[in-house]
């Protein structure tokens, strides 16, 4: 079986790759493209560690085939910061110590970006439900939610 | 002489033939282990491998040099790990 040829945009750069049909987008990112920021925690869509944006929509890359990326624009954790300038969400995760082991952090940050792109002023409850698909076993979510709410305020220009 | 108490690990009682308290001529933890092994073959190694001691109330996990005073009470307890 010949491999599939896929053309897409990854983190703003034109990208081409070959993959087998059964390879998920997560497999492709990690093993073909070489972007290992998206993590495999479950490979069943239950932990969110592999979260990416596909044409701006938040998805688990483990529940998407690599071939489905044809013609799409993909954003991974590696594409969140602007050059050497951290995104406010990343900055607030650091300031609030919203990570301990850091393994779920890429997924949480990508999911938070999707949340704040859609809803710049979420309530704590809205943030908690939006992020329910991102398991974190270290933090108990407290500092994560604080970082998300604080980042939202900064992005609304209310605080720095 | 320091007094050894097996309040714990009746796992050790098998080796002491049921004796729960006895005195040992020792001035250091290391000497104690050697004496225990001499007195009750197997017990010294057991303490060495998988037990800690409380010397006059303080837990020592594995400190040969820990000093024993004549009146010291040494309690053998399971070694403590954690998560």
């Amino acid at each position, binding site marked *: 079986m010949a491999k599939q040829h896929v053309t897409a945009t990854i983190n703003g750069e034109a990208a081409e790759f070959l993959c087998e*049909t*059964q390879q998920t987008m997560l497999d492709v990112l990690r093993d073909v493209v070489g972007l290992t920021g998206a993590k495999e925690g479950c490979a069943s869509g239950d932990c969110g560690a592999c979260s990416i944006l596909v044409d701006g929509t938040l998805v688990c890359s483990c*529940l*998407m085939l690599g071939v489905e990326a044809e013609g799409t624009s993909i954003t991974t954790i590696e594409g969140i910061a602007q050059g050497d300038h951290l995104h406010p969400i990343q900055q607030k995760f650091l300031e609030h110590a919203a990570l301990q082991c850091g393994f779920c952090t890429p997924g949480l940050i990508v*999911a938070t970006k999707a949340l704040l792109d859609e809803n710049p002023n979420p309530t704590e409850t809205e943030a908690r*439900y939006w992020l*329910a698909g991102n398991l974190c076993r270290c933090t108990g979510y407290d500092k994560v939610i604080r970082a998300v709410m604080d980042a939202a305020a900064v992005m609304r220009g209310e605080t720095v | 002489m320091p007094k050894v108490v097996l309040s714990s690990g009746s796992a050790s009682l098998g080796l002491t033939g049921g004796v729960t308290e006895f005195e040992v001529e020792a001035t250091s933890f290391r000497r104690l282990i050697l004496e225990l092994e001499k007195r009750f073959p197997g017990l010294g190694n057991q303490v060495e491998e998988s037990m800690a001691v409380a010397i006059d109330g303080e837990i020592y996990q594995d400190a040969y040099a820990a000093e024993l005073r004549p009146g010291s009470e040494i309690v053998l307890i399971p070694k403590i790990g954690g998560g």
Partner: protein
Amino acid sequence: MTSLSYAAPTSVDAAVKLLAGASGLAKVLSGGTDLLIQMRAGRYKPELIVDTKKIPGVIGIREENGGFVVGAGTPGAVVEAHAGMTKAWPGVVEALDLIGSTQVQGRCSLAGNLCNASPAADSVPAMYAAGATAVVVGSNGTREVPVEQIPTGPGRTSLAKDEFILEFKFPPRPANSSDAYLRFIPRTEMDIAVVGCGISVTLDANGVCTAARCSLGAVAPTVLLVQEMADVLVGHTLDADTLAKLDAAAQAAAKPISDKRGTAEYRKKIAGVLARRVAAIAFDRAMGKTAGKAH
């Protein structure tokens, strides 16, 4: 190695030909949130995957003679963002919204949820209650089927090898009509329904029920459309007596098994509890009393 091929046809005909022509197992891919997991688990070993998302009509929502037509592969998130659907069918929308995580919402579809044929699927009881129909396309042309005729058992559907669902039709809503869906899960999110319940009602000006469709999920091999529950509601306001009868009817209709997600005894009780709670929300919505999510 077993080879797996992939096609993303851009027309119904091309898709049907591919399905009909497949020598081995062919699976239709819409959101993939179930299919990919089942393939990884080795439950399915397809030789062909037909991605229908590039077929016109498979993704999108349109109004058609007073009702709504929802493309079979339209992601949950898109349906939830549609003001018209949310107003006319809040129960269907909230049911779809309960499937998996935000991440899954970006991909999961009504067709996938229905054709996966799990008795615990969240959007299915709501679609049963709504009286939605599925537009099925295949070699022999197009047929329109009530959604409750699609699943035939766990993981089994009435669709032929060369058929797939193109879109769903939701009928026009009379005045004083609405619906609601609730499911019970151990956590607040991310679980499979222990019990699900969907109710759609039409009331008269005095709040007396003139028409109702009720369904239960996860209490039988397939989602149940429960006429006995509807009979309890029609001709009545939602008074204490009616609620008690509805609870009893739901418990009587439920034929659950005990499994890792709940005991049979517990599921029966919860079926009754949810029926009462869902009916209350549906009635309030029908009278224009409440808006917003039921969960």
